[in-house]
């Protein structure tokens, strides 16, 4: 049992691991997006009730799932940060928030453009929609709170508390269509059963997988930037800068972050 679980809790070692993993997750996201879009937009038949407006489902549902799931992951890191007081935890929470906010916004936006043709309104103050809007505000609140505190370790603490308090909203979103009489439809996909045609379900699941891989890839690259920023006075970042050619200045050419220059390390 010689697994050093806390080895990667150190930002210095996680930096390298994240750099090695990010390109794989990015590639998985790209492939899954192409496959998912092909299934959803080309192969899948037109819905007999909603026509082709239903095709918004291929981004709406994955975005909503990942928006909620990312918040749970953030809360997990926040809890780990409070319990173990590790620096990496706060950095991970910080790295995940923008992508979670982005997907929650996408869920709201695509929901509006789906609601208009199906319900006749872009927005209604329905329990599902309102609780998802609150989730979006929680993400924005976290980002704003961080931005308002200069000391990163204090920002970690405050952000963790906010994240953990807000996690109560996730079951509210999830069960809102059950607890209240909502305009939003109930879950089409439940563990063990689904009320969708197989090809439609497949497209949606592939797109959800793509969104998940994308979130991991983007947050790994982002956490690397955060680590360098917050550890820039440490010896290992100095060695990292020595090992790299001095071409990191903004405006110079470069490929996808993480792929360039890593071999030199």
């Amino acid at each position, binding site marked *: 049992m010689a697994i050093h679980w806390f080895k990667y809790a150190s930002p210095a070692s996680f930096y390298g691991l994240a750099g090695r993993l990010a390109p794989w997750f990015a590639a998985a996201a790209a492939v899954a997006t192409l496959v998912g879009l092909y299934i959803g*937009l*080309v*192969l*899948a*038949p*037109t819905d007999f009730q909603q*026509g*082709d*407006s239903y*095709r*918004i489902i291929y*981004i*709406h549902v994955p*975005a909503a799932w990942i928006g909620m799931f990312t918040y749970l992951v953030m809360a997990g890191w926040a809890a780990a940060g409070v319990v173990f007081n590790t620096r990496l935890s706060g950095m991970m929470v910080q790295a995940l928030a*923008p*992508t979670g906010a*982005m997907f929650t*916004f*996408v869920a709201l*936006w*695509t929901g509006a*453009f*789906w609601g*208009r*043709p199906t319900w006749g309104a872009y927005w209604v103050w329905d329990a599902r929609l309102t609780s998802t809007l609150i989730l979006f505000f929680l993400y924005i609140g976290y980002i704003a709170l961080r931005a308002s505190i200069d000391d990163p370790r204090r920002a970690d603490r405050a952000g963790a508390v906010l994240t953990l308090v807000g996690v109560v909203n996730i079951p509210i979103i999830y069960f809102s269509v059950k607890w209240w009489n909502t305009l939003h439809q109930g879950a089409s996909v439940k563990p063990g059963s689904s009320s969708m045609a197989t090809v439609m379900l497949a497209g949606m699941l592939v797109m959800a997988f793509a969104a998940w891989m*994308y979130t991991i890839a*983007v947050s790994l*690259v*982002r956490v*690397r*930037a*955060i680590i*360098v*920023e917050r550890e*820039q*006075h440490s010896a290992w*970042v*100095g060695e990292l*800068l020595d090992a*790299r050619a*001095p071409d*990191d*200045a*903004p405006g*110079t050419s*470069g490929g*996808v*972050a*993480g792929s360039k220059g890593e071999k030199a390390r």
Partner: protein
Amino acid sequence: MNWSSFSDFLAMGGYAFFVWMSYGVTALLVVAEVAWVVRQRRQSLARARIQRNIREWSSP
């Protein structure tokens, strides 16, 4: 294959505006986020280098 022609695909059975507003804005946000995160990464290294140069030059 669900479509008979490319214009048929673009028309989305009359729901083109709603479908393409959803897909378009999502694509835009994803591209913007990727560009932002790549820039963030490059800037973090550039800033660290500047900070280090300042430290080295200002030390006796």
